[in-house]
C-alpha cells in the first residue's frame, strides 16, 4: 500500500487548486485532518476537491472542510453523489444555494448509520420510474428534490435515502415511498381540498400531519391487499427503523382497512386531532397540499376540454360509420363512462348511445386522469365539444415560438436541454445547454441556379456516379439455394459429374434485393468564422450534395449550428428528414449565414437524438466545420470544448451512429483524431475543394 501523503504535500496541492495565493482560503486545518487518513481516502477526497475547484474554488474549499466529517458518515458512493449534487445545484441555482447544501450536509443522509450505503436517486429513479408506470393510473414522473412527496403528476424523491445500513434495504425503502405516494394519487388522498379542511382546525399544520398519518394507515392497509409482497417489505422496514403507533392510534388503524376511502380518513380526523401526534412512518414522505392544488388547477380545465374535443371526434367518426337511420332533429350523442376497477387495473367502459365503444389510448388516459381527480367521470365532462369549441389549441402543450423565449423567465422557456461534459469535474453538467431549433430564413437570390450552372459538369458527373451506387436488384447466380434452377450451372455440374469430378451443389439463382437503408444528418458549421469564402463553399457543397443524394435515395437532413454561451445554443433547420428537396430547401441553403460561435456538443447530441428516432440500418452524422469547438466567455474552448465534443461523439457511437468530420482547419490534426478517431475525418487543404469533395467523400464513406 502506498504511504499516505504528508501534511505538507497535501497543503501544497490545495494551495494550487484553491489558488490560496489570491483567494486567501485557509488550508492548514484541512491539510491537518486529511494527513491523518489513509492514502486511498486522501486521494478520493483530493480528487474531488480538484474536480469541484474547476467549477468553483470556494465550493471546493467548503467541501474540503467538510470532507473528514463526510467520510465518517457516508460511504464513498454517497459522497460522490453528494459532490455531484452540489455542483448541479451550483449550476442551476448559484452559489448561495450550493453553500446552503454544504451547510446542511448532515440532512442529505439523515445520518442514522455511519458509512451508510445509501440508495442514490440516480440509481433508483430509472427503475422506480418504470415501476410506477407499471402500476395503474396516471403516469407519474419521478424527479429529484429535497423531500419525498407527490403533486399528483410527479413523484419527488430525495437525492439519497440512507435510513438503513444496506443499499438493498435503502432501495426497498425508496420503493415503498414511491408506492405510497403512488397510492396517494391512485386511491384518492389528493382529491379533497386538504388545505381548507385543515384550516378549520386551530392548528392547521398539526391537522395536516394527523390527516397524513390517517392516510398513511389507510393506504398501508390498501397496499397490503393490492401489493402484498411490497407490504411485507414495508412492515419489515418499519420494524427495523422502529416505526410505531403513538397512543390511541391503534384503534384508528383498526378502523381503516383495505376498503376504506379518503372520506373515512376525513371522518376520523376529529378523533385523530385529539390524540397525540402521529409518529411518521419511514416510508410516508410528505404531504404537500399547495403543490397538489397547483398541479390540479393547471390540469382540470385542460383535460376537460381535451376530453370533450376527443369525444366529439369519436362521436363524429361513429356517425360516419353508421349511416343515420331515422331522419329527424339532430340528437346530441349520449355518452356514459363507467370505471372498471379490480385486479389492479383501471379501465373504462365507454358507451355511445348505449352502444359500447372502444376508447383510443389517449381517451383512456384522459379518463384515468379525470377519474383520479374526482373518483368518477363527472357528467359535464362527457358532453362532446360543440362546433364553436373545437379549438383545443390553448389546451395543448405547444412548442413555444423559439424567438419568444427571450421573454420567458431565465431565458429557458420552450427550449430543449442538453447536458454537457465538464472535463474538470469529470461529470456531466445537467441540463446545461439551452437549445432551440430555428429555421434558416430562406433567401431567393438565384444562388442555387448559379451554383448548378457553375458546376454543371461536376453535377452531371456526381449524379451519374451516385446513380451507379444505387443498389438495385441483382440476380445472383450459382447459389446453393434460390428460386430458380441456374441452367448454366446445372449443365456444367452435369458435365463435371460425367467427367468423374465432383458435382457442385450451387445450382440455383437467387434474386438479391438489397436496399440501401442509410440515414444521414449533416451538421454544418454556421459560426462567425465561416464568413466569406467558407460560407460560400459550404453552401455550394450542400447544394451539390443534395443533387447527388437525390439520385441515391438515402434519407438525409441538414442542420446548421451556432450559438453564444450555453443559454443560446441554436440549431438551424435547413432540411429535415421527411422534407423533400424543394425550392424552399434550396432557398434555405442559400440563406445560410454566419452567426456566432462554435459550440458543438449540443448539436451532436440533438442530431443523434433525431437520428435515433429514424428507422434505418446505417446512421451517419457528418460534420462540416472550419475549426475547433469554441464559444464565448463561458469556458467552452480549448480542452474543455474538445472533451465535451468528444464525449458527445462517444454517446452518438454508443447509440449506433457513425460520426465523420470534414474540415478545412489545417490544425485539425491536433484534435480531430482525439475527437473522432483516427479514420473518421478528412482535412481539405483548400476551401475551394469543398464543393467538389463533399459528395465524393460521402460516396466513399457509404459505399
Amino acid at each position, binding site marked *: 500500500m502506498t504511504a499516505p501523503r504528508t501534511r505538507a504535500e497535501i497543503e501544497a496541492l490545495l494551495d494550487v487548486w484553491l489558488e490560496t495565493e489570491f483567494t486567501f482560503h485557509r488550508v492548514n486545518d484541512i491539510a491537518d485532518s486529511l494527513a491523518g487518513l489513509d492514502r486511498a481516502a486522501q486521494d478520493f477526497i483530493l480528487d474531488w476537491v480538484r474536480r469541484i475547484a474547476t467549477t468553483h474554488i470556494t465550493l471546493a474549499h467548503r467541501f474540503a472542510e467538510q470532507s473528514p466529517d463526510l467520510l465518517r458518515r457516508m460511504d464513498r458512493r454517497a459522497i460522490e453523489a453528494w459532490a455531484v449534487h452540489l455542483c448541479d445545484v451550483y449550476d442551476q441555482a448559484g452559489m448561495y444555494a450550493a453553500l446552503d447544501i454544504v451547510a446542511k450536509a448532515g440532512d442529505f443522509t439523515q445520518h442514522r448509520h455511519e458509512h451508510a450505503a445509501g440508495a442514490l436517486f440516480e440509481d433508483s429513479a430509472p427503475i422506480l420510474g*418504470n415501476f410506477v*408506470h407499471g402500476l395503474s393510473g396516471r403516469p407519474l414522473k419521478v424527479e429529484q428534490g429535497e423531500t419525498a412527496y407527490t403533486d399528483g403528476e410527479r413523484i419527488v424523491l430525495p437525492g439519497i435515502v440512507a435510513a438503513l445500513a444496506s443499499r438493498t434495504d435503502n432501495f426497498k425503502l425508496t420503493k415503498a415511498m414511491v408506492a405510497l405516494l403512488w397510492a396517494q394519487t391512485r386511491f384518492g388522498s389528493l382529491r379533497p381540498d386538504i388545505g381548507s379542511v385543515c384550516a378549520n382546525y386551530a392548528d392547521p399544520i398539526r391537522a395536516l400531519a394527523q390527516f397524513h398519518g390517517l392516510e398513511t394507515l389507510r393506504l398501508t392497509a390498501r397496499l397490503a391487499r393490492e401489493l402484498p409482497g411490497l407490504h411485507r417489505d414495508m412492515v419489515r422496514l418499519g420494524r427495523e427503523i422502529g416505526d410505531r403507533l403513538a397512543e390511541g392510534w391503534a384503534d384508528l388503524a383498526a378502523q381503516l382497512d383495505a376498503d376504506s376511502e379518503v372520506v373515512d380518513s376525513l371522518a376520523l380526523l376529529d378523533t385523530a386531532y385529539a390524540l397525540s401526534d402521529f409518529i411518521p412512518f419511514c416510508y410516508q414522505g410528505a404531504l404537500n397540499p399547495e403543490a397538489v392544488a397547483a398541479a390540479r388547477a393547471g390540469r382540470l380545465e385542460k383535460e376537460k376540454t381535451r376530453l370533450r374535443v376527443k369525444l366529439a371526434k369519436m362521436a363524429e367518426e361513429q356517425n360516419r360509420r353508421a349511416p343515420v337511420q331515422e331522419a329527424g332533429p339532430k340528437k346530441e350523442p349520449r355518452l356514459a363512462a363507467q370505471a372498471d376497477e*379490480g385486479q389492479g387495473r383501471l379501465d373504462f367502459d365507454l358507451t355511445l348511445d348505449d352502444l359500447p365503444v372502444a376508447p383510443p389510448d389517449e381517451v383512456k388516459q384522459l379518463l384515468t386522469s379525470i377519474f383520479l381527480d374526482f373518483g368518477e367521470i363527472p357528467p359535464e365532462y362527457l358532453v362532446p365539444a360543440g362546433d364553436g369549441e373545437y379549438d383545443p389549441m390553448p389546451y395543448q402543450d405547444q412548442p413555444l415560438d423559439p424567438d419568444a423565449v427571450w421573454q420567458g423567465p431565465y431565458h429557458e422557456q420552450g427550449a430543449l436541454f442538453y447536458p454537457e461534459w465538464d472535463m474538470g469535474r469529470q461529470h456531466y453538467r445537467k441540463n446545461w445547454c439551452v437549445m432551440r431549433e430555428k429555421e434558416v430564413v430562406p433567401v431567393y437570390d438565384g444562388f442555387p441556379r448559379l451554383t448548378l450552372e457553375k458546376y454543371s459538369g461536376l453535377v452531371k458527373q456526381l449524379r451519374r456516379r451516385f446513380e451507379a451506387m444505387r443498389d438495385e436488384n441483382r440476380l445472383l447466380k450459382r447459389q446453393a439455394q434460390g428460386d430458380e434452377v441456374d441452367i448454366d450451372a446445372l449443365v456444367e455440374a452435369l458435365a463435371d459429374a460425367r467427367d468423374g469430378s465432383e458435382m457442385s451443389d450451387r445450382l440455383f439463382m437467387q434474386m438479391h434485393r438489397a436496399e440501401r437503408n442509410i440515414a444521414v444528418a449533416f451538421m454544418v458549421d454556421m459560426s462567425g468564422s465561416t464568413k466569406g469564402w467558407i460560407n460560400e463553399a459550404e453552401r455550394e457543397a450542400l447544394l451539390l450534395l443534395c443533387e447527388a443524394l437525390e439520385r441515391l435515395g438515402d434519407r438525409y437532413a441538414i442542420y446548421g449550428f451556432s450559438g453564444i454561451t450555453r443559454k443560446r445554443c441554436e440549431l438551424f433547420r435547413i432540411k429535415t428528414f421527411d422534407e423533400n428537396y424543394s425550392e424552399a430547401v434550396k432557398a434555405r441553403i442559400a440563406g445560410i449565414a454566419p452567426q456566432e460561435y462554435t459550440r458543438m456538443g449540443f448539436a451532436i447530441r440533438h442530431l443523434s437524438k433525431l437520428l435515433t428516432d429514424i428507422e434505418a440500418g446505417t446512421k451517419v452524422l457528418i460534420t462540416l466545420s472550419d475549426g475547433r469547438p469554441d464559444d464565448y466567455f463561458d469556458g467552452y474552448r480549448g480542452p474543455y470544448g474538445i472533451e465535451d465534443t468528444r464525449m458527445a461523439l462517444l454517446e452518438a457511437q454508443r447509440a449506433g451512429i457513425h460520426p465523420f468530420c470534414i474540415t478545412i482547419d489545417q490544425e485539425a490534426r491536433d484534435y480531430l483524431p482525439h475527437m473522432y478517431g483516427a479514420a473518421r475525418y478528412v482535412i481539405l487543404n483548400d476551401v475551394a475543394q469543398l464543393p467538389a469533395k463533399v459528395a465524393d467523400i460521402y460516396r466513399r464513406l457509404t459505399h
Partner: protein
Amino acid sequence: MNAHAFAPETHYIQSEPYYEPLGEEIGIFEAAYRNTLPILLKGPTGCGKTRFMEYMAWRLKRPLITVSCHDDLTASDLVGRYLVKGGETVWVDGPLTRAVRVGGICYLDEIVEARKDAMVVIHPLADDRRALPMEKLGQLLEASDEFCLAISYNPGYQSVLKDLKQSTRQRFVALAFDYPAPELEARIVASESGVDGALAETLVKFAHMTRNLKGSGLDEGASTRLLVHAAKLIASGVSPVTACQSAVAQAVTDDPDMLAAIQELSTSLF
C-alpha cells in the same frame, strides 16, 4: 421415443385443442369458411391466434398448414420451385400449393414479415377467383371449397415498413384478437398450467402491470402465452418471482432498468 413425422397436408388435429372463445370469433370464422372467404387475424403476439387456428382446424376437420413468415420468405417459398434430383429438375410444391391441392387450411403467420412478392401471390387466392397461379409451371391451380386461407398480423408493430397494404387487407374478413378479459385470462392460465385460481389472478394482475408499460419502455406487455409459461414454471416448483423474471421479464426486454422495474413489480405482488 421417436418423434412423429407427417406430411403437412395429412396432419389432422386429432384431439380438441383447449380454446376459450373471446367473443363470436368461432361463429364468424365458420360463416366465412362456408362462404369461402379468407380470414385475417389481428392482434398482439401470444394472445391466442395460433391456438384459435388449431381449434378451428380441429372443428372443421381440415389439415392445417402453418407458415411462419420471415423477411426472406419469397413467393417461391410458398408456391414451390424446381429442385435438381439425380440430374433432373423436379418440381416441388410449396406449403401453400399443398394446402390448395388437398383443400386444407393454410395459415400464414405474421404475413407482414414476408417479402412483397409473397404477399402479392396470395391475392388471386384471396378474392373470388380462388386460384393460385404457378408461373413456373405454367399452371393455374383452382382451389376447392374446402380450402381456406388465413393470415395473421400484429398491428402493434409501429413500423411504416411493416404495414399491411390496403390491397391485401381489403380481401379478408378480419377478426380482432386482444388479451382476454382478466377473469377469462386467469381461467385460461389456470387451466393451461394447473396453478390455482388465486395465483392465476395474481399473474394476470402482473401481466396488466407490464402492459401498462407498453409505450413507456416496452414494445409490448406480457402475453397470455408468457403467463402460461410462468404459471407452468410455478406449478413445477419455481418460486413466483423467479418464474416471472425468467418467463416474462427476460422474454419481453433486455434493458437492465426495465428488467429491474419488472422485478420490483413482481416482488410487490408475490
